[in-house]
C-alpha cells in the first residue's frame, strides 16, 4: 500500500535568473556588466596594443613632453619623446601579463598550502607560521630584497606579488575549510561514506570558493599597485618596457608642468580597479542571497 504522496508542486520553470549558477547570475547583473565592460576595455586595449599603437613604445622621437593632441601623438609624448598612447597600451599589456600570472599563481599556492594545513594539526601549525612569516615581512622590503637577489625584471615582480598573495588566499581557504568541515552537510557526507580527500575536494571546496573568487578581484587590484610601487622604488619591471606604474612614476616630476603625462596610466588603472571592484561587489551580492 502507498500513501497518496504529493508530487512535486510544479515542474522546474525556465527562469530568467536564479536557476542558473550563482556566478553566472552574478555576472549578468548590471553592476557586473559595467565592471566587465570596463575590464574588457582595458584588457582589450592591452591585447590589441600592437594593432592600436601607432608607434613602438620605445621609439624616441626628438619631441619630448609634447602635450596631448600633438601631431602623431594622441596622448602626447613622455620626457624621452616616446609616444604616450603606445606606452600606455603596452604598459597595460605588461601589467596584465604580470598580474594575470602572479595572482593566480599566488592563489593556487595559497590554496595548496591551505589544503595541506587542514590535513593535519601539526602541518597546520607549520603552514600557519609560514604564513605569519610572509605576512610579517613588509611587502616593499620584500620586494627590495627579492629584486636585489634576482635583479630587476618581470620575474621578481611576479614572485613578490604571488608571495604576497599566498597567505591571503591560504588563510581564507583554511578558515573556510575549518568552518565548512564541521557543517552538517560535511558530516552527512562522511556518514554517507565519502572519503577524506573527496570530502574536501568535492564537497567542501566549492563552498569555500566564494570569498576566494571575490578575493581574486581584490588581489588583482592590489597587484596593480604593488607593481606600481615597485616601479616607484626602482625595482620594477626592467626598462624600457613600459608598465602603468612605471609611467606614472616617470610622470611624477612633471605633475605640475604637464599633468596630462600621468593622466593616461591613471585612467587605465582607475578603469581596471573600478571594473574589478564592481565585479567583486556583484559577485559578493549574488553569493550572499
Amino acid at each position, binding site marked *: 500500500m502507498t500513501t497518496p504522496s504529493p508530487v512535486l508542486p510544479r515542474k522546474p520553470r525556465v527562469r530568467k535568473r536564479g536557476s542558473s549558477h550563482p556566478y553566472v547570475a552574478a555576472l549578468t547583473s548590471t553592476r557586473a556588466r559595467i565592471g566587465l565592460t570596463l575590464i574588457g576595455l582595458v584588457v582589450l586595449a592591452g591585447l590589441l596594443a600592437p594593432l592600436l599603437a601607432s608607434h613602438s613604445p620605445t621609439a624616441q622621437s626628438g619631441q619630448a613632453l609634447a602635450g596631448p593632441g600633438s601631431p602623431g601623438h594622441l596622448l602626447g609624448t613622455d620626457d624621452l619623446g616616446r609616444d604616450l598612447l603606445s606606452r600606455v597600451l603596452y604598459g597595460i599589456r605588461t601589467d596584465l601579463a604580470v598580474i594575470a600570472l602572479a595572482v593566480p599563481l599566488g592563489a593556487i599556492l595559497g590554496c595548496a598550502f591551505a589544503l595541506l594545513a587542514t590535513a593535519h594539526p601539526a602541518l597546520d*601549525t607549520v603552514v*600557519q*607560521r609560514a604564513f*605569519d*612569516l610572509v*605576512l*610579517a*615581512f*613588509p*611587502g*616593499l*622590503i620584500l620586494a*627590495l*630584497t627579492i629584486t*636585489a*637577489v634576482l635583479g630587476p625584471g618581470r620575474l621578481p615582480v611576479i614572485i613578490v606579488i604571488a608571495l604576497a598573495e599566498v597567505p591571503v588566499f591560504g588563510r581564507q581557504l583554511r578558515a573556510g575549510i575549518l568552518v565548512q568541515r564541521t557543517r552538517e552537510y560535511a558530516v552527512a557526507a562522511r556518514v554517507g561514506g565519502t572519503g577524506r580527500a573527496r570530502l574536501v575536494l568535492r564537497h567542501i571546496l566549492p563552498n569555500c570558493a566564494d570569498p576566494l573568487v571575490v578575493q581574486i578581484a*581584490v588581489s588583482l*587590484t592590489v597587484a596593480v*599597485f604593488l607593481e*606600481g*610601487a615597485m616601479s*616607484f*622604488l626602482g625595482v620594477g619591471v626592467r626598462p624600457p618596457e613600459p608598465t602603468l*606604474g612605471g609611467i*606614472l*612614476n616617470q610622470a*611624477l616630476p612633471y*605633475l*605640475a608642468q604637464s599633468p596630462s603625462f*600621468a593622466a593616461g596610466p*591613471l585612467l587605465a*588603472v*582607475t578603469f*581596471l*580597479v*573600478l571594473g574589478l*571592484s564592481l565585479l567583486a*561587489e556583484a559577485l*559578493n551580492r549574488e553569493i*550572499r542571497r
Partner: protein
Amino acid sequence: MTRHLLKKLPSALLVLFLASFLIFAILRLVPGDPADLLAGPDASQASVAAIRDQLGMDEPLLTQYATWIGDLLRGDPGPSYAIGGEVSDLIGDGLGATVELTLGALFFTVALALLFGVLGATSRRGPVRAAVRALTTAALAVPPFVTGVLLVLVFAVGLRVLPAGGRIGLFDAPDLELQYLLLPALCLALPSAAVLGRYLGDGLERALAEDYVRTATAAGVAPRRLLWRHALPNALPPVVTLLGMQVGHLLGGAVLVEAIFAWPGLGQLAEQALTRRDYPVVQDLLLLLVAVFVLVQLLTDLLYALLDPRIRWE
C-alpha cells in the same frame, strides 16, 4: 586571556627564530656588501678589504649569526655598519616616528572605514551611495604615491596650509606635529580605509538583515541605535581581523609614504639600510617588524574575543 597568550607564545617565538634565520640568510644572498659601499665611489680593493676586516665580515657566517643573536639577547645590538650611530638609537628614533604615523593612519583608517561603511550600508539615497562608492573607488584606484604627491601639491604647495613633509617630534611641539602628521597619515590610511569600509559596509548590510535586528526593530528600537548598537558589533570581528593584517601593512608598507613626506620612520630606515647593505640595521629592524606583527596578531585575537562573547568560552 593570559592562558591564551601563554599558549601562543612558543609558536610566536618559533616564528621569530625562523624569521631571524631567514632574514640573516636572505641578506647574505643579496649581492653587494656594506664594505663596498663604505669604501666609497672610487675605492680600491685594498680599502674594501680593510673595511671588511674592520666590520668582522670575514668571520664564518654561522659565527656572524651567533654574534648577532647573542648581541641581541644581551640587549646590545651594537653599532650600525653604514648609516652610522648605534642600531638601537636608529631604530628607536624610527620606531617613534613610525608608531606615530601608524597610529595616525590607524585613526584615519578606522574613522574613514566607519564613515564609508556606515554610509554605504545605510544610505537609501542614491547620491550619497554613489558619492561613497566614488570615494572608495578613488581611494582604491589611485596609487598611494600619486595620492601623496597630489595631497602635497594641493595642501602644501598650493594652499600652503600644511607642511610638505618632515617631522618635528610629538614631544617637541605637539600642535605642530599633528599638522605634519595629517597628510602622510591620510595618504597611508586611504587605501586601507577603502578596503575596510567596503568590508564593513558588507558586514553591516548583512547584520542589518539578521533576525536579531528584526527582533530589535519589532521592539521599537530606533534605526540609529539598531545600526550602532546591534549591527555594528556583529559586523566588526572580521573587520578587526583584517585591520590586524593592515597594521602590518601600515607598519612596513609605509616605505613609500614615508619617502614622499620625508617622514623619518622605520620604512625609510629600512630602505636606506637595505640600499646601503647595513646588515645589523636591516636584520634588527626586520626582526622587530616581525615581532610587532606577531604581537598585533595576538592582540587582534584578543580583541576578537572581546567583541564576540561566544569565542571566550572556547
